[in-house]
């Protein structure tokens, strides 16, 4: 264990309208660890993930990244963060390749062979030059996962990443997650189906 956790979420409270959604949620995340947030629909899994990603201001509580408060190191934090939301953030009019090119190039220079390699790894190489509008839901999800892989961020925050994926896609994605954890990466997901069960460093957090 590290002396200081990489990501430390302490007693986060969040209200959405009249509902007290998160009631003192706390957890820590270190290199090589996967935390899966589980719970019934509407319990606040997405809200928790958005809070940790800094997309939702919390009512109280602290989110500490590498020893610093989130609001003190936002740019730093975002450069080590890859966030996959419910929606895939793909432009229907751009091809799958252009979509990834533009979104990844915002963060780091990326080359075409590198992009093609990721498409091949996710078994969607033939889709690369098709407009995103013509892809199936599962293929779009794979393209969005490709963005996460290409971002090369230390922390992945994934909101129900395996939505629309077939069983081969889920197996492939588990492989990618295992690789990321093996390289000391961290993953926080909201999921209805537990992934990488039994692996060391994989935990669940149940919301009530």
């Amino acid at each position: 264990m590290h002396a200081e956790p990489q990501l430390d979420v302490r007693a986060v409270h969040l209200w959405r309208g009249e509902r007290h959604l998160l009631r003192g949620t706390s957890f820590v995340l270190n290199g090589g660890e996967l935390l899966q947030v589980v719970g019934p629909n509407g319990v606040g899994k997405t809200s928790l993930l958005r809070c940790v990603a800094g997309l939702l201001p919390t009512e109280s509580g602290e989110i500490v990244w590498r020893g610093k408060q989130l609001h003190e190191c936002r740019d730093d934090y975002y450069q080590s963060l890859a966030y996959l939301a419910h929606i895939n953030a793909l432009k229907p009019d751009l091809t799958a390749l252009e979509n990834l090119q533009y979104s990844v190039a915002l963060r780091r220079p990326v080359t075409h062979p590198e992009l093609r390699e990721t498409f091949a790894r996710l078994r969607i190489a033939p889709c690369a030059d098709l407009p995103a509008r013509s892809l199936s839901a599962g293929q779009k999800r794979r393209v969005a996962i490709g963005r996460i892989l290409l971002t090369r961020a230390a922390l992945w925050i994934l909101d129900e990443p395996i939505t629309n994926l077939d069983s081969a896609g889920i197996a492939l994605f588990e492989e990618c997650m295992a690789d990321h954890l093996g390289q000391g990466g961290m993953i926080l997901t909201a999921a209805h189906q537990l992934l990488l069960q039994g692996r060391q460093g994989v935990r669940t957090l149940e919301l009530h």
Partner: protein
Amino acid sequence: MQSSGLGALVRLVIARDLRLAARHWDQVMQPLIFFAIITTLFPLAISPALDELRRIAPGVVWVAAMLASLLALESLFRPDVEDGTMEQWVLSGQPLSILLLAKVVTHWLLTGLPLVLMSPLVGTALGMPQSVWPVLMATLALGTGSLSMLGGVGAALTVSVRRGSVLLALLVLPLEMPVLIFGARAVDLAMHSEAVAGPLNLLAAVLLFFLSLGPFAMAAAMRVSVES
């Protein structure tokens, strides 16, 4: 990451938006057609007599330009916010103000610049002498820039409001009045062969003001819109 400099970032966003625009030309053309139609309505409704038209021409061209730019604003940020791209931009660790400024610049290239280029044609139809063209184009170039920036702030504020286009108009139009006044006044002065430096300078000053503060206001408004 700072490895990709700000210039590269701006070029990236502009290249992306131009490519997107090239794939749906029909939508890009709409405000321009709107501009052309509105200005043609006046001769039909008021009188085809050139003397009368000439008197109202500066105002007509300017009001039409304002409305056309307002029409185009609706699609400035909304698609990016709805498909989750904006969320990724907020989380990219790059300065959001620069990214949004690049978007507004592209927006101006696609909606403001064509208005500027079309204006002599429209002006001629309303009986403006050829000598006024340079002033007309200059005021529109400066003015539509201001309208795009100001509109960008309004669009960022209202993007999370469902059916926010009316709210956007109510918010932005009153603030655009100085631009309209100086712009139409300069053209009017030019038609009477008087000095136009005053209103032109004021238009330029307004544009500089919006360019310097607009990006930060847009970024702040966009964060509020996305973080909800």
